[in-house]
């Protein structure tokens, strides 16, 4: 099947004061119809440039962008504008017309397409219903919250009956909860209207939440592409690993061979013992082994911890456990 978007050897070079800057270099990928395709990368990786090349808001310096088989870079101006009507786009800062009310904002793409005003208004109201903002039809963007503005932007984009929806950091200006609801809405749109969605983001959580496929962009180069599962299971590149494990950016390697076995009884299960130790002693401990077993009807947990090299800190940890009434014994040569 012909992919809905195909990018071939795409380059974009900007003229800067001190020479040329290659924003993206030799990008190749395909997006199948109905996919939610994530493009992830750190800031400055060229994500925004790349997405703008997909509807030629930014004209590529080299290469080709095929949408439904036709090369956008070769289309005459008029054809290009008609094609753009089928490629919707939403933005980080919503980009609503501030001097128009919500209803007229949603009508805007239909005005451009030359749809009769009465028809456009009716459809705009339906779309506002879809995004849950029907009662805000007469409000102005300045009176709405960020999440509401993005919903209006989504209704507006749907008004153009797009086959593709480009989202440029569409949730980056929103709080986590609003982000979740907007992502939910995007997913719903993808399923209900079969719109292919391209999501640009720097947050792995967004990719995890809705994307089926993902491309990792690093310094203007496509580092890897694949399904989201593949990326999570086995990131092939350093940058992908960084993005996947973004929570644990600074991993301390434990080199010490000092280990203890701690036994928890049923009572201490209420206290987050390991968590407290880490906070108290401000040092990581390595859990090498943990198990729970029932001894005479009581749940007992055992755990083997690797302690930090620093003797003083190690002693402090052992003392802490003893103070809490847990049994601690040093173990040597622990082998799994």
């Amino acid at each position: 099947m012909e992919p809905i978007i195909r990018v071939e050897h795409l380059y974009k070079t900007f003229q800067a004061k001190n020479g040329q800057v290659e924003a993206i270099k030799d990008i190749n990928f395909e997006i199948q119809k109905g996919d939610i395709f994530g493009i992830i990368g750190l800031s400055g990786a060229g994500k925004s440039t790349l997405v703008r090349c997909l509807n030629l808001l930014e004209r590529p310096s080299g290469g080709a962008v095929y949408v439904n088989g036709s090369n956008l870079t070769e289309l005459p101006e008029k054809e290009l504008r008609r094609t753009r009507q089928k490629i919707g786009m939403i933005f980080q800062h919503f980009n609503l017309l501030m001097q128009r009310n919500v209803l007229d904002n949603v009508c805007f793409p239909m005005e451009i397409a030359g749809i009769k005003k009465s028809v456009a208004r009716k459809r705009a109201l339906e779309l506002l219903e879809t995004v849950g903002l029907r009662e805000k039809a007469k409000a102005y963007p300045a009176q709405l919250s960020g999440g509401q503005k993005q919903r209006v932007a989504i209704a507006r984009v749907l008004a153009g009956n797009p086959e593709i929806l480009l989202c440029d950091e569409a949730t980056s200006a929103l709080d986590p909860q609003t982000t979740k609801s907007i992502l939910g809405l995007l997913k719903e749109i993808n399923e209900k209207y079969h719109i292919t969605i391209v999501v640009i983001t720097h947050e792995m959580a967004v990719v995890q939440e809705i994307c089926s496929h993902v491309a990792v962009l690093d310094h203007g180069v496509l580092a890897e592409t694949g399904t989201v599962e593949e990326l999570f299971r086995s990131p092939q590149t350093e940058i992908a690993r960084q993005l996947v494990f973004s929570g644990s950016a600074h991993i301390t390697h434990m080199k010490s061979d000092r280990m203890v076995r701690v036994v928890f009884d049923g009572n201490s299960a209420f206290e987050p013992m390991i968590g407290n130790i880490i906070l108290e002693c401000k040092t990581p401990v390595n859990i090498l082994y943990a198990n729970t077993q029932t001894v005479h009807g009581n749940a007992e947990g055992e755990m083997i911890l690797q302690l930090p090299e620093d003797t003083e800190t190690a002693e402090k940890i052992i003392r802490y456990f003893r103070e809490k009434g847990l049994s601690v014994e040093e173990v040597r040569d622990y082998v799994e």
Partner: protein
Amino acid sequence: MWSSTVIHMLLEGTGATLYMTLVSTFFGYVIGLPMGTLLAVTDKDGIRPNAVIYKILDVIANIVRSIPFLILLILVIPFTRFLVGKSYGSTATIVPLVLAAGPFIARMVESSLKEVDKGVIEAAQSMGAGTFTIIWKVLLAEARTSLLVGLTITIGTILGYSAMAGVVGGGGLGDIAIRYGYYRYQTDIMLVTIVILVLLVQILQVVGMLISRKLDRRL
């Protein structure tokens, strides 16, 4: 001094001043609005960059704006005579006023349109909007408030310029102030014309700001 002749003269002068100001503003915008729009659109980060058109308009605007109005007034007398048939009186004054106001308005319009959020323009482009649609429905519509503020400032400026034309018999309140206050040492009449001019500008400013704020949907 409050003879009926003087009062009549002042009323007529006020009428002539308003006539010159409003007509000149109108024709000033007939020149300045398209010129300013072209400047904003053809600038290098505009929606249709065109260095040649931009440079030409830029130079014209700068030349006209660097000529002091009083000099321009005298400079264009032959042209005024050709157009109106005479070089004195309020209708004749409209000619140099429009010539001076056009480029001034163009700069105002240019800067108003450049204030429009680039993101909104980009959004319109992503919807497949053409240049004309963007100019009409995005640039001019979104810059509405700023354009109205510009209009208010423009009317005030033209009002001031029209008074200057009194030196060459331009008619209106400025003419009266010069003839009576300067040539005849009748300071009282000059003071009254000044008060009327101040009131006109004051009213204009208040009304202009009120309307532009009323029409702004960002508040």
